[in-house]
C-alpha cells in the first residue's frame, strides 16, 4: 500500500502528567461549587438550614409548642414591645416563633426530601421500564401517567388521609403518589434518548446482558438529568406542602411545618405580620438555596459547559 504512513505513535505520554494531577471527583465537584458564586451561596445557605434543623435540640430554644396565653402576638425584638426571650416574637398562642421556625424546618425539609426520594424511585423505575420495553406496556403506562396528571392531588390526599390518618408519613405518600409522574416522563424521555446513543448500540453489538446495559449504560447516563430535576423538585414539593396546608390538608398540629405556620398566620398578615412572614422567609430561603444549587448542578453536569 502506499500513501499511508504508519504512525502508531501517540501523544499519550505528552499529557500523562495531567492525569497524575487529576483531583478526585469529589474534590472537583466541591471546587467547582466553590467557584460558582450562586452555587456557593446556595450551598452555604442550605447547609446552615440543615444544621439548624438537625441540631435544633442542642440549641437553647424555647419549647416550640408551649403556649403563653399572656404573651400572644408579641412582635419581634427590634419592634416596640418586643422581648429578648422571643427574638422573632410569638404567635396567636404565645408560642416562640424562632423555636417554631427551627423545629418547623424538620417537617418541611423532611417532606421535601422524602417525597422526592420516594416519587423519584417509583417514577424512575416505571419510566425506565416504559422507555426500555416500549410497545403496549409503554402505551398503558403513559396513559396512566396522563390520567394521574389530570386527577387533582387533593383527591389522593383525601383518600390517604382517610385511610392512614393525617400526618407526616401520609403526606409524603400522597405527594409521592402524584409526583412520580414527573420522573416517569423525564426518565422515559431520557431512556428513549440514551438508548439511541451509539454507545448503547456498541454495547448491544458486544452482546451485553440487558441488566448490565441498564445498570452500566443507561442508568448512569439518565441520572444527571434526573438529579437536576429532583433538586428543583424538592423546592416545589416544599411549596406544595404549604399549599396543602392552606387547604387544610397539610401537616397538622402538634407537628409543626412552615407551610402550616404560613397558612395559619396569613389571617394576621395585616396585624401581626411576623407570624406568617418569618416562616415565609425561611421557606423562601430554603427553596431559593435549593433552586440555586439545582441550577448550578445543571450547569455542572452539562458536558458542553467547561
Amino acid at each position, binding site marked *: 500500500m502506499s500513501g499511508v504512513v504508519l504512525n502508531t505513535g501517540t501523544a499519550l505520554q505528552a499529557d500523562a502528567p495531567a492525569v497524575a494531577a487529576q483531583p478526585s471527583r469529589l474534590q472537583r465537584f466541591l471546587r467547582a461549587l466553590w467557584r460558582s458564586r450562586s452555587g456557593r451561596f446556595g450551598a452555604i445557605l442550605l447547609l446552615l438550614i440543615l444544621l439548624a434543623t438537625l441540631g435544633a435540640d442542642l440549641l437553647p430554644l424555647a419549647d416550640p409548642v408551649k*403556649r403563653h*396565653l*399572656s404573651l*400572644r*402576638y408579641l412582635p419581634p425584638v427590634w419592634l416596640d414591645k418586643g422581648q429578648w426571650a422571643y427574638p422573632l416574637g410569638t404567635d*396567636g*398562642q404565645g408560642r416562640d416563633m424562632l423555636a417554631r421556625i427551627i423545629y418547623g424546618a424538620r417537617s418541611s425539609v423532611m417532606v421535601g426530601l422524602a417525597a422526592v426520594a420516594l416519587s423519584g424511585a417509583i417514577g424512575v423505575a416505571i419510566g425506565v421500564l416504559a422507555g426500555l420495553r416500549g410497545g403496549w406496556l409503554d402505551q398503558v403506562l403513559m396513559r396512566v401517567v396522563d390520567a394521574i396528571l389530570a386527577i387533582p392531588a387533593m383527591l389522593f390526599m*383525601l383518600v390517604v*388521609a*382517610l385511610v392512614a*390518618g*393525617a400526618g407526616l408519613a401520609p403526606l409524603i405518600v400522597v405527594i409521592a403518589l402524584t409526583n412520580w409522574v414527573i420522573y416517569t416522563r423525564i426518565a422515559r424521555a431520557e431512556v428513549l434518548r440514551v438508548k439511541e446513543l451509539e454507545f448503547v448500540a456498541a454495547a448491544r453489538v458486544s452482546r451485553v446482558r440487558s441488566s448490565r446495559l441498564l445498570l452500566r449504560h443507561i442508568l448512569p447516563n439518565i441520572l444527571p438529568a434526573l438529579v437536576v430535576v429532583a433538586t428543583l423538585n424538592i423546592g416545589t414539593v416544599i411549596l406544595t406542602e404549604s399549599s396543602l396546608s392552606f*387547604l*387544610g*390538608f397539610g401537616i*397538622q*398540629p*402538634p407537628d409543626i411545618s412552615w407551610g402550616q405556620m404560613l397558612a395559619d398566620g*396569613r*389571617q*394576621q*398578615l*395585616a*396585624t*401581626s405580620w411576623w407570624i406568617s412572614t418569618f416562616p415565609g422567609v425561611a421557606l423562601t430561603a430554603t427553596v431559593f438555596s435549593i433552586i440555586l444549587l439545582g441550577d448550578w448542578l445543571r450547569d455542572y453536569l452539562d458536558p458542553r459547559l467547561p
Partner: protein
Amino acid sequence: AGSTTLTIAQSNDILSLDPANHENNSTQSALVNLYEYLVNKEFPNGKMVFTPALAQSWKQEDPRTWVFELRSDVRWHDGKPFTADDVKFTVERMKGNPKLLSAVEKFRSVEKVEVLGPHRVRLVTSKPDPLFLHNFVGNGGSILPQHAFQAAGSEEAFFAKPIGTGPYRFVEWKKADRLVLARNPQWWGGASHWERVVIRAIPETATRVAEALSGGVDLAVNIPPEDIGRLKANADTGIVAFNIARNFGLHLRTEPGVVTHDARVREAIDLAINRQELADVVADGYATAARGLFPPEIPNANTRLTATNSFNPDKARQLIQAAGAKGAKIRFGSPSGRYIKDREVSEAIVGYLQDVGLNAQLEVQEWSIYNARVGSDSHGEIYFWGMGSYTDASFILNMGSLKRFNPHWRNAEFERLATELPATTGEKERQAIIWRAQEIITQDRARIGVLYPKAIYSVNKRVQFAGRFDEMIPAEQVRRA
C-alpha cells in the same frame, strides 16, 4: 356599589337555590330574601317568639290539627297570587322526595294537608307535635309556588330562575361568585329598601376583611377577633358581635377499654378546662363560657349549666391520680378553620389537659375527613364539635342523632326520658324532662359544653345591622345609616 345596592360577603358559596335541599346556614340567610315562611322566629329580649309572616294567624284545633289563615295580598314575583295550594305543594313536595336534605327534619309528623279555601289551610299530624310551628321556619320551610313548578316542567328548570314571594327578586346566580337580587316593587310589606342586593362568596377570611376595609362590601360575616382592631380603626367600618345558635362542646368516649370510660377521668377533663380564659383570651372575649349545650335563647335550654366555678385543676389532678390515669394518652380530635377559632380552642384545651397530668395529643383533621370520622365513630377519646342551628333543646333527646355523635353512651334514665317526651304535652313537664336530659348528659360527661361563640360581622358605616341570633341576613333589616 351605588348607594342603592347592598353587598354582603359570606364565607362560603350558596349551595342551592332550593330552600329544601341544602343544610347550610349561609345559604338560607341569602334565600330568606327570595322566599318567605308562614311564620317568622324573633328573639326579643333573648326569648324566642313566633311572629306572623305569610300566615296572618294560626290556631290549634286539637293537639293534632292546625289551621293557618294566610295573607291574601301576597303575590309571587311573576304576579300570580299566593294561595293555600302553594303551602300544600311545599309540604307534599318534601314528603315525596327523600333526596331533599330538609326531608329529615321538616314535616315529618304531617299526615295530611287540606286546602280549606284560597287562603286557609289545615294540617293534621300523625301525633301531637309540640314543635310543629318550627317546621315552617328555617331550611325547607320556605313556601314555593306550585304553578311555577308546573310551568317550568322540572325542578331544575324552576331553580334556574326561581321565584318567591320575598322582598327581592332573583336576577342572577354565578356559582362561587355572587347571587344578585333586585327590589320587588310589589312586595306585600311595601316596596323593599334596596334596589339591588348582591351576596358574594368570599371563602378566604383575609380577603373578606380586605373587602370590608376597602369598601368593596357593606357587610362581611365571620370576622376573626384579631381583625376587629383594624376594622374599628378604619374610618368607614365598624363591627357588630352578637349571640348565635351555636355551641362548642366536647364529645367523650365512654365505652369500656378507653381511659375515658372511667367517670373520674371524664370529670377531671371537665374540671381541667379554664372556660373563662378560653372565652376571654383565646376567643378575645367574643364567646361566653358555659358548660351547657344550648345558648339560653334556645327554648328549653338549661340555663343552670353555667361555667361558674367549674375550673378546678387541683381536683382534676386528684381525680386522675385516683383513677390511676396519670400520663394516660388522650387523643383529641379537632377540625381546623371550620368554626371561628376552633383549632385554637382545641389547642388550649389540650394544654389544660396536659397541665393536669394527662398525655393529651391533638389530632387536627381537614373538615371532610373529620366529619367522616364522626360518622364512622373513629375519633379518639375526645373530639370537638360545634353544634348549631337547632331550634329547641329537645334536640338533645333525638336518639338518632345521639347514636351518631355518642354511639356507645348508655344511660337508662336518659333513654326513659326520651321515650316519655313525645307523650308529654304540658310546657312545664316538657321543660323538666329536657332540662334533666341536659343535666344527665353533661354530668355523665358524654358531652361537655365549653363555649357559646358569638358571631362577628364587619359593617360599613353607611349601613346599620344588629345581627340576628339565627344568623339570617334579611336585607330588609339592613338599613342605610
